[in-house]
């Protein structure tokens, strides 16, 4: 079959798998909703404070939810030998890996995109910042999946890789967090956000090109 067919086949398979394991897949989303809803309870009835904190709270929660979902990216493929079969495929592993990352984003990033505006409303984020929140989520959640993929690929061979994964990936997530929450923050005060969005877009495009290659190299190392 052609490379394009293999690329779409892997996305299809991963979506199908996610659907069959939906309870497991919904975990990060629940986690996301849970953290955000716990904040008002802990902070108390201070709408003003919650409103100022909203961009930060939503983005930190989104980031932690993404981190929680990362392990599922290559773990089961590694354990049941599917990864070995992918390595032996005559097709480029980088393209297959990109397919897996896209499927991962569709399953874990896209739901965040749909729930986040509701939670933002719940925290009292000004309406003028909604559009920006959406834009930052559209640009930056795929970025979280992409950056995370390198970390997972490096740690998938380790029995207890969770801690190392967080240490590896979190520092790389920090720029995303800063620009994304800053953009929402500025939008809430009615300031222009073009620069932040452009930087996020640039990071996303760079990651799309640069991530698959080292990820597939790291997977080869992990299988060794």
């Amino acid at each position: 079959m052609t490379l394009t067919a293999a690329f779409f086949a892997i996305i299809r398979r991963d979506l199908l798998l996610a659907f069959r394991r939906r309870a497991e897949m919904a975990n990060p989303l629940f986690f996301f909703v849970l953290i955000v809803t716990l904040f008002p309870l802990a902070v108390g009835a201070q709408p003003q404070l919650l409103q100022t904190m909203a961009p930060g709270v939503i983005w930190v929660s989104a980031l932690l939810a993404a981190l929680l979902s990362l392990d599922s990216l290559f773990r089961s493929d590694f354990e049941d030998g599917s990864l070995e079969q992918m390595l032996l495929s005559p097709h480029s592993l980088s393209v297959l890996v990109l397919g897996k990352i896209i499927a991962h984003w569709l399953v874990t990033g896209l739901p965040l995109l749909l729930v986040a505006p509701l939670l933002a409303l719940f925290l009292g984020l000004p309406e003028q910042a909604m559009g920006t929140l959406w834009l930052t989520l559209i640009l930056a959640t795929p970025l979280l999946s992409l950056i995370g993929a390198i970390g997972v690929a490096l740690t998938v061979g380790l029995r207890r890789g969770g801690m190392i994964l967080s240490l590896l990936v979190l520092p790389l997530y920090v720029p995303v967090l800063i620009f994304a929450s800053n953009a929402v923050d500025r939008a809430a005060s009615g300031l222009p956000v073009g620069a932040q969005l452009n930087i996020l877009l640039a990071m996303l495009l760079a990651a799309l090109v640069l991530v698959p290659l080292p990820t597939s190299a790291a997977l080869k190392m992990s299988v060794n």
Partner: protein
Amino acid sequence: MENSQQTALVVKELSCSRDERLLFSGLNFTLMPGQVLLLEGSNGSGKTTLLRVLCGFRDADAGDISWCGDQIDESSYYADMAYVGHADGTKKELTVLENLRFALALNMPGHYSIQQALEKVQLAGYDDNSVQTLSAGQKRRLSLARLLITHNILWILDEPFTSLDRQGIELIETLMVAHVEQGGMVILTSHHDLTIPHMSLQRIHLDSLDS
């Protein structure tokens, strides 16, 4: 798939060690179409390691492996080989049919259609069963069905007879004979002695190699 060079797997002076322990060294063999190579050796003698080196999963410490005269990375090796290891490489949540369709999408189509292959490995009628409902032997036969539906010349099989009953073993041996008669090659490790007649069988005993 005929190249100017003859189709053959040539291994020269291969050596490999694990955790400072030499597994094998100075391993030489040539595998031609129509031949079967049986790797023997006690547990831990490096049979699986050798297969993983041949698959390119790990690098050998020394020596080289060539396919049709070229290094394996620079030839059509990966399109021409298929591997069934300890792990089945199937997804337990997916059905038999979905697993095979995916395997087909990753590789080039081979001699048999999915239905024909399922009949060959006696899994016809299990198309829509999810793999987790299959028995261990059925899972093994499913992973071997993958060899039939994809294009390949060289089969690398790590303990293909594990968890198969006598009928299953006979079945796999029949499939191997058919493959070899069509000009295929097989490398396998096994504790069972092969009962295949009229076949060009090479044996390598790994215990006797490390000196």
